[in-house]
């Protein structure tokens, strides 16, 4: 069976292989297999805590390196001017295999930690310097503003003096007294000056007033520019305040209150010259700090630029190494012989490719001991692997979303390549709209390579992933558009119509010549057009639905053969097929027959098919001769009803009966069924002798197995068959009706298209004035946007969903078993995207 040509029809054959890898070459082997992307390793240490596995130390080191690369990424993000990061395919590669690989990784580790410490110190010093700058700026403001206060106070000294007579004396010192009053400068009041947040100023004033009982004079001004906190980028606005008061106790209280309100107090000298000196010093220090800050910023940026040149390749290496060590943790470490033992699933077809890869890895690493590959016999279920290419992967993905096929089961994805776009098109049929989505698909396909490299975003990314699905949908939609004769709600007159309107009558006369391809254009605009098209589309939906279900049912048969249960063909497939055909297959034949009869030449008026079906069940065998479709109908219908009636118990009972007979045979012969055994640790050591120096493929070891054998309980079979029978029989009826959505959506689509035309461009296509031209332009623009947005996108998504549902529910329920798990090989390919 291993030489059958693998295809998408069913999963590829998978083999369980055992790899014996010497420790020296282990890292390079896993690297090579990861690049290949064809091997799925099994976890041989499932009961071991992740912290107790063999390679935990290496993983910890790599995690550290990963953390550092993430730190670099964050720092680069934070830079206001964009730091260029060289993309991966332009970076110089780091060689992580071969004899010097350990050295390379060590060097990388040191480089990363060096960069990290450099960046951290630079960041810290930048932080400190910014703090200092802020303090100095505040001091400068305070100095400036207090200068203003003092100047103002000078000019007002006279006013103060005149308003306060003797009681003013305590506020002023004897200096002024001696000089007779209005002297400049020597304002010997003690004061406290500083800055405080603007929002706190009123509270501050109130508190001070209450505490000091009004024995203070406070003045404050806004600082115009806000202060920006470098770490949080938050803006704070501050005010400069100066409080004049007298007495140490009072001043101490002021200072305490100020500090509790979060104000910063600056030492200001009363002397104007000293203040000027202080201001100059502050300005100088500020300038120096600015220079240092600027240089630090430049230095930091140059470090980041250097990092940016190799960041992507570092991240790539770190990620690969982490994957490699995680995979190595899955292996079984045989300490005695210094080898690692691995078990993996590989596609049987690729065994040679993998052996070549192993040999290549040995050559790269420079050792002479190659890893050894052994095929194992196992009863465990392999993963399901469908080898897809860029065309088929979209279709396979949408069918896999319902459930992964069981191993070696018929893959519904293969047929979905045609049936899915087809059912979509039946609901979407319009030449113009089909053409639009076709162009969109072709555009994406032509720009495949470029679009695959960039990050397209979630929505466009989804459309891009399904570009081949959209291509097929477009092609089929154009075909059904020709059949429905619908081009943006207009019809095409490609051939001679089958209807004439002699003498300007409003009723058509049939010429006897049928329009050869699609719907006759004579129906366009007729008042009873919908009556005709509804009947046509509904019947077509039933015909297509029954044929789709029959096809899906027939897909059961290869599964029964492959899984060696031929009896299921007689117990399941045949009764199901007979049931379906005797009722709904008969209905389809009646539809086709009724269409093929020329009722004008028949003595009987055309009977309603729906009534016929209902009376077939309600009054079996009795058919009114005035309403019969064909002679002998009554007898035929009774036979069909009888067949359907027999099929239900046939489906219900035969399989349980066979299981019951089987069970009696085994118990009658004295056997007792074994319970599910526990995992027996097969001694791998026993296979060591057979493997020493042997070539690949010679020894066949039995893999240890969990008992996967389901106990085929008789009760289980009965219950399962009851459910299956009910589901199938009721499902037949409901699913057949469900296919009427093909009619419903195509009707909605046609009507929407017509309404859009009549509301925008109808009557405007022949503009007779400038206003007409402007109207045409605006309405045309609106028509185009609504066509793309509503009719193509919205209706398209809707039809996509319904076609998918038809495949998943109506189609898959007839044959699909599911329950498989997907083949998930170790692969470095998909890992390059996230940081």
């Amino acid at each position: 069976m291993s030489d059958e040509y693998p295809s998408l029809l069913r999963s590829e054959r998978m083999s369980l292989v055992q790899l014996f890898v010497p420790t020296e070459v282990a890292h390079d082997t896993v690297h090579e297999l990861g690049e290949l992307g064809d091997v799925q390793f099994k976890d041989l240490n499932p009961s071991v805590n992740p912290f107790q596995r063999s390679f935990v130390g290496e993983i910890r080191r790599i995690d550290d390196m990963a953390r550092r690369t993430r730190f670099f990424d964050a720092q680069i993000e934070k830079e206001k001017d964009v730091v260029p990061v060289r993309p991966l395919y332009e970076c110089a590669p780091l060689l992580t295999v071969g004899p010097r690989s350990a050295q390379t990784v060590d060097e990388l580790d040191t480089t990363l930690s060096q960069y990290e410490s450099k960046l951290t110190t630079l960041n810290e010093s930048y932080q400190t310097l910014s703090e200092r700058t802020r303090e100095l700026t505040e001091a400068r403001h305070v100095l400036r503003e207090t200068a203003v206060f003092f100047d103002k106070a000078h000019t007002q000294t006279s006013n103060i003096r005149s308003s306060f007579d003797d009681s003013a004396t305590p506020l002023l010192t004897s200096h002024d007294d001696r000089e007779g009053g209005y002297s400049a400068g020597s304002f010997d009041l003690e004061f406290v000056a500083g800055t405080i947040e603007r929002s706190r100023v009123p509270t501050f004033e109130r508190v001070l007033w209450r505490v000091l009982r009004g024995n203070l004079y406070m003045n404050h001004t806004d600082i115009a520019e806000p202060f920006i906190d470098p770490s949080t980028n938050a803006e704070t606005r501050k005010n400069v305040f100066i409080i004049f008061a007298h007495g140490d106790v009072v001043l101490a209280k002021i200072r305490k209150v100020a500090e509790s309100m979060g104000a910063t107090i600056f030492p200001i000298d009363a002397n104007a010259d000293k203040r000027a000196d202080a201001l100059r010093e502050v300005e100088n220090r500020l300038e120096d700090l600015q220079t240092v800050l600027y240089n630090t910023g430049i230095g930091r940026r140059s470090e980041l630029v250097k990092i940016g040149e190799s960041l992507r390749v570092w991240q790539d290496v770190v990620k690969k190494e982490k994957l490699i060590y995680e995979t190595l943790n899955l292996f079984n470490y045989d300490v005695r012989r210094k080898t690692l033992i691995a078990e993996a699933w590989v596609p049987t077809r690729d065994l040679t490719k993998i052996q070549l890869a192993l040999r290549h890895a040995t050559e790269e690493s420079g050792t002479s001991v190659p890893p050894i590959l052994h095929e194992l016999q196992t009863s465990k279920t392999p993963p399901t692997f469908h080898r897809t290419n860029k065309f088929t992967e979209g279709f396979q993905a949408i069918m896999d979303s319902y459930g992964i096929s069981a191993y070696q089961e018929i893959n519904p994805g293969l047929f979905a390549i045609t049936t899915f776009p087809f059912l979509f098109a039946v609901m979407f049929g319009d030449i113009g709209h089909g053409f639009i989505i076709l162009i969109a698909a072709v555009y994406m396909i032509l720009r495949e390579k470029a679009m695959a490299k960039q990050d397209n975003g979630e929505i466009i990314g989804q459309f891009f992933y399904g570009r081949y699905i959209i291509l097929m949908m477009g092609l089929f939609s154009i075909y059904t558009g020709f059949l429905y004769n619908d081009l943006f709600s207009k019809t095409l007159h490609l051939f001679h119509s089958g209807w004439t309107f002699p003498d300007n009558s409003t009723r058509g006369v049939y010429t006897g010549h049928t329009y050869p391809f699609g719907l006759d254009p004579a129906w366009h605009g007729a008042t009873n057009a919908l009556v005709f098209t509804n009947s046509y589309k509904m019947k077509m939906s039933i015909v297509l639905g029954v044929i789709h279900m029959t096809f899906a049912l027939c897909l059961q048969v290869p599964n029964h053969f492959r899984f060696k249960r031929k009896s299921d063909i007689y117990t399941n497939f045949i009764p199901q097929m007979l049931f379906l055909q005797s009722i709904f297959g008969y209905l389809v034949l009646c539809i086709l027959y009724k269409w093929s009869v020329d009722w004008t030449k028949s003595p009987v008026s055309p009977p309603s098919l729906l009534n016929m079906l209902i009376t077939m069940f309600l009054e079996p065998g009795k058919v009114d001769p005035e309403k019969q479709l064909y002679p002998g109908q009554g007898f035929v219908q009774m036979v069909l009803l009888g067949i359907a009636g027999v099929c239900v118990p046939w489906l219900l009972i035969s399989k349980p009966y066979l299981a019951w007979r089987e069970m009696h045979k085994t118990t009658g012969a004295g056997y007792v069924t074994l319970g599910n055994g526990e995992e027996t640790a097969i001694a791998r050591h026993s296979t060591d002798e057979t493997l020493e120096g042997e070539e690949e493929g010679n020894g066949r070891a039995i893999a240890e197995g969990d008992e996967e054998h389901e106990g085929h309980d008789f009760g289980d079979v009965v219950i399962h068959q009851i459910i299956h029978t009910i589901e199938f029989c009721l499902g037949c009826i409901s699913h057949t009706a469900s296919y009427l959505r093909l009619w419903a959506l195509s009707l909605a689509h046609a009507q929407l298209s017509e309404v859009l035309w009549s509301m925008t461009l109808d009557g405007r296509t022949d503009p007779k004035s400038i206003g007409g031209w402007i109207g045409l332009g605006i309405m045309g623009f609106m028509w185009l946007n609504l066509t793309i947005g509503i009719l193509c996108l919205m209706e398209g998504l809707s039809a996509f969903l319904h076609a998918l549902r038809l495949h998943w529910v109506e189609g898959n329920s007839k044959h699909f078993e599911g329950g498989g798990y997907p083949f998930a090989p170790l692969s470095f390919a998909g890992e390059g995207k996230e940081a």
Partner: protein
Amino acid sequence: MASLFPIFLVLAITLGLMSASFLFVRKGPNQAVIRTSLMLTFAVCYLTWMVTYLAQLHPLMVPTFSAPPAHTA
């Protein structure tokens, strides 16, 4: 004259195309996909065309208009 003959003729053509695609698609990794897709495509295209043709063969109703249509046959 409207008859069932075209249906059988096109059926024969379709069956011929389906057999041709089965027999003449060259061996390769995509043989199954190409074969299945081509055969299914021919089959469904024929089915929908056949249903549309059959529905108009002996029509049970005539198109009526509110005003005489300006039609070219």
